[in-house]
């Protein structure tokens, strides 16, 4: 990509986002979609209002905490299962199917299960872990296969076992794919935590969103939804940077 096309792309991008913002503001000001669609400036003003800082702060901390714990737990389990499938190829086919089916389970259908299995405050973490699990498993499993034939031949000729091959060949080869999986898992775990909170967690962004929906607090509803989107974008950006770092180092 030349600097010229990149600059045009950036200009279009800025313009596109600006059009989106202006449309939002205009729709809100003119109340075309009714009073439940506030202008962007009102929502931002509400979000930065010091009066609500501690409210939003506590909610963000709670959601961040459960999403983060779920993210770590889901990624660890995913790595473990991917490594297991790499060591025991007989499990691979069924494992892939099993994981894909788990992923297709609508996360909200698991609400009844988690309410029984753990506390209401643990449910967001569990659903976040499940949401993070799938992208990390798929990426890591594919990364383990991402070795060259000549490397595999060399390890075979030197008489290395499956474990040595996993540790010294497949693991390093899987790093970029693994980082890519983390990048997709990060926003997924934020969404998972929010869904989990809807089953009655004591606090969090999800609770704020639902209670302001039920109580007709329109500005607060939009502000907390915007906050959820920002957290999700932030998680995506951080792990996007991490992935670029890993790819640059392993190249």
């Amino acid at each position: 990509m030349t600097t010229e096309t990149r600059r045009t792309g950036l200009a279009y991008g800025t313009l596109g986002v600006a059009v989106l913002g202006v449309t939002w503001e205009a729709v809100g000001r003119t109340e075309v979609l009714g009073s439940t669609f506030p202008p962007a400036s009102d929502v931002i003003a509400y979000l930065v209002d010091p009066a609500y800082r501690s409210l939003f702060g506590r909610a963000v901390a709670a959601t961040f905490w459960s999403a983060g714990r779920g993210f770590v737990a889901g990624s660890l389990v995913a790595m473990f299962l991917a490594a297991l499938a790499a060591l025991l190829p007989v499990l691979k086919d069924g494992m892939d199917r099993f994981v894909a089916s788990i992923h297709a389970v609508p996360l909200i259908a698991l609400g009844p299960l988690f309410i029984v299995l753990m506390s209401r405050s643990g449910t967001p973490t569990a659903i976040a872990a499940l949401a993070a699990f799938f992208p990390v498993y798929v990426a890591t499993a594919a990364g383990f296969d991402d070795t060259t034939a000549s490397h595999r031949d060399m390890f075979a000729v030197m008489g290395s076992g499956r474990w040595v091959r996993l540790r010294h060949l497949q693991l390093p080869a899987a790093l970029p794919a693994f980082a890519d999986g983390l990048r997709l898992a990060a926003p997924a775990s934020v969404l998972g935590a929010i869904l989990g909170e809807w089953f009655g967690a004591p606090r969090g962004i999800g609770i704020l969103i639902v209670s302001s929906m039920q109580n007709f607090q329109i500005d607060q509803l939009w502000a907390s939804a915007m906050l959820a989107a920002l957290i999700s974008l932030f998680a995506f950006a951080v792990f996007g940077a991490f992935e670029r770092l890993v790819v640059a180092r392993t190249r």
Partner: protein
Amino acid sequence: MSQAISELQVPITATRPTAETRASSRPHLARRVAEAMWNPARWFARRYWGVFAIVGGWHTYVTVMDVNRIVMPSPGSVFTELATNPGRYVEPSISTITVAIVGLVGGMTMGAAFASLSWFARALNGLLTPVAVILRSVPIVAMVPVLARVFGYEQRTILLITIAISFFPTFVFVSSGLRSTPAGSEDLFAVLGARRLTLFARLALPSAVPNALVALRLSAADCILAALVAEFLMGTRGLGHVFQDTIGDLDMLTAWTAAVIATTFSVMLFLLTRRLERAGQGRWSI
């Protein structure tokens, strides 16, 4: 790596599976059928041990931990409930599936249409792509309460949500697919004097089919999830409404049965779309 790319959400333009990797990862159909005929039990266990693990684990947990049946019913009692009262679940299931599939088809049609328009008009593409990329990283399912408040607690709101869920991925994937034509092919079309419309119909559109199928697989399960979430929060009708109603009344048997039905539909739709995607890749990929 190629498998990961298509399985995840990144456009697969750069690293599509080559004929060679596809052949090695998917044995020939005749061989697979022969394998299945030779030892059906083993073939079945190898592919579907996960399902048995889940149902078996659930049954064992309920039996060993001696959980209160009212809180967590066993798999057997859920199947009995489904067999004795199927009528309770027919109407909600049809409602949820219909709204999810109509929204999926509508959103994908609109996404593909906008992607095609922006293929003809570069300015439109420049404007829409960054917006679509940003909105794609926004958790739309978490925005259901906002949309419910704006458009009302009605069935059409759920439809709008499922349309939005499938629109953005389709737009992004089809756009990149329309541009990922084989190297040199555009030059060939130009040399032979093809018009822009011919170029679109004969080259760009076919090369976007695999990407559209990836978008279909990614959106399908999300549409069902979004429909359930919306029904759960708004309590209009459908399986999500059954959850909300019965969890409130602590009628866990009904809640679990509805969850099992929703899960089965979602997994079946996922497997179907994955099969379509693989068939499409075999037919349209270079």
